[in-house]
């Protein structure tokens, strides 16, 4: 399963819920305002790091760059461009977009 989250963790609990129901081997892709969750010092950092032990965490680089956060990304988070986004969707059996 690929989970996609597009909301800031300080605005909505989408990421929190997503991580609660994510399983071993699932992938999470942060896009749009969701990318703030994978930046150092954000309140969501401990939860993201915890999730990284059993899931792959990705973030969309163009959205990080648009927000000037590309240099603040937590170690271990994989950055993808739009092509990588498409690859992730194609690689997974099912995609869940959390609203």
């Amino acid at each position, binding site marked *: *399963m690929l989970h996609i989250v597009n909301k800031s963790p300080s605005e909505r609990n989408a990421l929190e819920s997503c991580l609660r129901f994510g399983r071993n081997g699932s992938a999470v892709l942060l896009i749009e305002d969701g990318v703030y969750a994978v930046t150092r010092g954000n309140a969501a950092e401990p939860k993201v790091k915890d999730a990284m032990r059993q899931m792959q965490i990705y973030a969309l680089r163009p959205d990080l760059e648009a927000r000037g956060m590309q240099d603040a990304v937590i170690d271990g988070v994989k950055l993808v461009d739009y092509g990588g986004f498409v690859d992730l969707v194609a690689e997974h059996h099912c995609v869940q977009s959390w609203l």
Partner: protein
Amino acid sequence: MNEATADIDLQEETSGTVKKFMFVNRKAPYGTVYALEALEVVLISAAFDQDVSMVFIDDGVYELIRGQSTKAIDMKNFSPAYRALEGYDIEKLYVDDESLKARGLSTESLLVPVEVLNAAQMAELMDQQDVVISF
């Protein structure tokens, strides 16, 4: 194979495909239109004889509260529709235990029979789906 039989084969193939659809409800009923829209999509999917389950997480559990009365806010009370789902062969309703507890609710507060799952059980169920649509 002529054109006519090819048509028939195609029809049989299409009607025989049943996918597992899960609709994830995470919003309270009247503040936004998500809950009502989800319900409408669920009813449409039922018309296509798919394997449908509905899941209620976070504020989505508020959709199922017994005794909703919307007269004074001039909006349609769509909560009776959850009771009608059974008539459309949608009988798989699952509620997240933690979401209920965090809101001081129990299944007794709900207007339909549901199965209560913990996070691990819910995650497993999500993983079994072909299509997951979140509201």
